[in-house]
């Protein structure tokens, strides 16, 4: 099937929304560990690390929407690492994946993000650069397309 530029930028937008969902769930996980950190000293560190990681994911999602190549690289690395950890943990008899919620959160969403990131990346090196918001908001948003940051996965300035 022919993959149009707008499909690519749409994939990046959807991926960024899913990353925001993941970041929000991480934020909640970090915040929820704070009460336990009162008596479990190790969770003080884990809670802070998780909240910082959630903040980083929000930032990466924002930069993915802005078409930053490095954000794409970081996100796909994190998602693949997350999927590898899930696969590893599901092999252990500790009941990590039991039911639709852990399946959605730990498997479906990260896989969807990886697929969408791969789709958004396909052909960007040779294909034309297209305003990323065009696909999202339709023609009515094209008036905003010239705001200077809407090119999907522009190469990092080296």
């Amino acid at each position, binding site marked *: 099937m022919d993959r149009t530029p*707008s*499909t690519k930028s*749409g*994939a990046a*937008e*959807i991926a*960024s*929304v*899913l990353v*925001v*969902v993941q*970041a*929000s*769930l*991480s*934020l*909640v*996980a*970090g*915040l*929820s*560990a704070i009460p*336990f950190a009162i*008596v*479990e*000293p*190790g*969770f003080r*560190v*884990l*809670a802070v*690390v*998780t909240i910082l*990681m959630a903040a980083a994911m*929000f930032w990466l999602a924002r930069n993915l929407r802005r078409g930053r190549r490095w954000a794409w690289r970081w996100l796909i690395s994190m998602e693949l690492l997350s999927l590898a950890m899930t696969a590893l*943990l599901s092999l252990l*008899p*500790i*009941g*990590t994946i*039991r*039911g*639709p*919620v*852990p399946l*959605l*959160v*730990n498997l479906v*969403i990260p896989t969807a993000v990886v697929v969408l990131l791969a789709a958004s990346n396909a052909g960007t090196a040779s294909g034309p650069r297209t305003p990323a918001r065009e*696909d*999202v*908001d*339709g023609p*009515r*948003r094209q008036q905003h397309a010239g705001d200077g940051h809407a090119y999907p996965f522009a190469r990092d300035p080296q």
Partner: protein
Amino acid sequence: MYDIATDHAGAISAAVLALIFVAAFVFGLRFLATAGVAWAARITHVYDAAPSITKLAAALMLLSGTIHLALVPGHDGITGVLFVIDGLGFIVFAMAAFLTAWWHRPAVLWLAATILAYLVWVIAGWETPDQIGIACNLIELVALGLLMRLANPTRRTWPRRVWRATAFPLMACLTTLGIWVGGLAHPDALHAHAGALLQPVAAVANPEQQAAAAQLLADTRASIARYQDPAAAIAAGFKPGPASSADPLRHFQNSANANVILDPNRPQALVYAQTPHGLQLIGAMFQMPRAGQWGPDPGGPLTQWHQHEGICFSPFGIEFSFETPFWTCPIGSTSITTPPMLHVWIIDNGKNGPFAADLDKAVQRELTGRS
């Protein structure tokens, strides 16, 4: 902590069928459009012209609508009526996304109202949070996030920017908090303390079961009396678990007994209380080899096994916290479910009794000075 309610299980099949139906419908339309059918070509054109985010948001709303409709038979009264209205509303919005220009804002309000209504129902105790409800909530949250990205801000003022940046994380936090409060405030009959799932048993023990429970208690008490001194337990192969300031009880586990099933002479663990005068043996813990494998309960409801689930376990310092309803744990910890266990308390365990999942709080306070 969050299972799949029996009357909700059908919703999974309905959701899968809905996805297959949508895929088949789109495929069929494309086939007809290719064959030259005019109306199919028009619909295909409208569908293809829609942004990817709209397509996904519509698919998720359709999924949520189908799940709501599939749950109607298990919900009477006003809840059932609202499920019908909600389900039909989502299906209408899923179609309106391709056919109308006005659908966006009402769909956002519908999604937000549905998520908040679920929280109200859960907190009020009118609905027990289970995995189907939470999964449906997650689908709606993702759809809401997609629609929020579709929003076209006319004025880019700072308050609006801050609201756009924080609205979704706030909604996720609020949802988690609401489900948590509801789940902890109104646990179902099979959940003891938070995170412990009880073995389903009959309501009342018959005389034979009462005698068997008394025999198990006597046998266990006689068998573990030799381990009053923790050194004797260590010499017999029991390894002391980590001492935690959060838990006044310490478990000494014997991995050599891992595959033994409810043998009073070979318990999987011994339980000591950390008293001001040192460790005091207060009971034994029997554990099954695998999660979900309930053990024999000779005393019926008196010897009810329990398994801990919904726990975040951190190997750094062997620490625990509760996972969120969305099954997430802090980085560096993982969700675990323990194999079923049965405690036999050889001391007087107050109103909880000799086989309770927990030591009675008053007894614990008296023994250890901590609750």
